[in-house]
């Protein structure tokens, strides 16, 4: 399992591995939105928490198909399924690797984008906290979608279509936390809910994803 994690991280950081592309997409998006909405601080600040969360979600989404597609093409997935590690574990590890290469850089870079979008500084801790709790669920749900669509040619858009509705609870609570942070309101309730969603996803989805993978390997 650790070997798998290390390999995935190493692959991501090698040339062509796509490390950092998610952050780059996030950057471009944060730069585009002001062009669309207009540079006005009064217009940007109230929507910044929502845009930041939607942006995090989209840039996570765009790298999802890498989770299994490459391993499927070169046959590694078949071999992993016959290896002495449970497929559920392999799924969880690959989702973790995805989070480390996509979610974590996003969280580290988020303050920069928050400044671009005029998010008040006092909201920063809550933005980071909510991303920290929420993004693991995004990666895991994405791994599920990737497992379902792994054999399909050009499954990319279909993957988005399947996964986005599943992201809604996380998005709602995450953006709510950030918004409340910006307005100095109490955040306990949404934080608890967000944590509950993430815990449930992390506990149950690996089994669904492994089942989908087994079907696709058949």
């Amino acid at each position: 399992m650790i070997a798998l994690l290390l390999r995935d991280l190493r692959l991501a950081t090698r040339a062509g591995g796509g490390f950092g592309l998610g952050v780059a997409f996030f950057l471009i998006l944060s730069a585009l939105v002001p062009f669309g909405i207009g540079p006005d601080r009064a217009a940007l600040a109230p929507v910044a928490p929502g845009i930041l969360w939607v942006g995090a979600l989209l840039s996570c989404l765009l790298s999802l198909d890498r989770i299994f597609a490459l391993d499927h093409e070169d046959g590694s997935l078949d071999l992993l399924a016959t290896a002495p590690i449970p497929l559920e574990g392999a799924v969880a590890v690959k989702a973790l690797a995805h989070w480390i290469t996509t979610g974590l850089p996003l969280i580290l870079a988020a303050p920069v984008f928050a400044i671009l979008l005029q998010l008040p500084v006092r909201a920063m801790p809550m933005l980071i906290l909510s991303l920290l709790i929420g993004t693991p669920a995004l990666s895991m749900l994405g791994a599920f979608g990737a497992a379902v669509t792994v054999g399909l040619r050009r499954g990319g858009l279909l993957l988005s279509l399947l996964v986005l509705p599943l992201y809604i609870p996380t998005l709602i609570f995450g953006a709510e936390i950030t918004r409340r942070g910006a307005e100095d309101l109490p955040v306990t309730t949404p934080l608890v809910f967000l944590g509950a969603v993430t815990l449930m996803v992390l506990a149950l989805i690996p089994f669904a994803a492994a089942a989908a993978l087994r079907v696709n390997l058949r």
Partner: protein
Amino acid sequence: MSLLTVHDLTVARGGLRAVEGVSFSLNSGQALILKGPNGIGKTTLLRTVAGLQRPVTGTVAMAEDAVAYAAHSDGLKSSLTARENLGFWARVFGGGGIDAALAAVDLAALADRPAGALSAGQKRRLGLARLIVSGRPLWVLDEPTVSLDAASVARFAQVVGTHLVAGGAALIATHIDLGLPDAQMLDLTPFRARPGPVTRPSGFNEAFA
């Protein structure tokens, strides 16, 4: 000691059964070669034995975690070196002896070359080295000598021979002669599934036919 016992096995692909009623058993030190025309179901049978798909009827009995499977694609990452690729599989399967395995397939000199820069035959040999490091007793090989030249085929036979002597077993599907003199041969042609009504459909195609 029987490493693998297959009894009355029926396998299906795309909702249609391919071969029906196949039985054989494989003891330690034995190799069995599956023959048969294109499309009869060799690959399907091997995937079933490897546990990647379920049998329609019949049983596949073997010890847990005994099988190492090698198909057309070798599961190599082109940006990792030969040694890194092998090291990863060794760790996953809990095996070892990477350098010995590289030497056995004559890739020691190329150990630090990225797998993407290997020729087709060299990639194939690296795939075989993975079997060695897996430490699994039962090798299930699907056309292992594709894109190998004559010298490499001979080396392959030698690797399999060593494995058998060490108490392993091998189940191999192939169209060509592998140079394994002691191997038994099983022609799947007589087991081709007969069309017609079935008691237990193998999938949509048979349920609705």
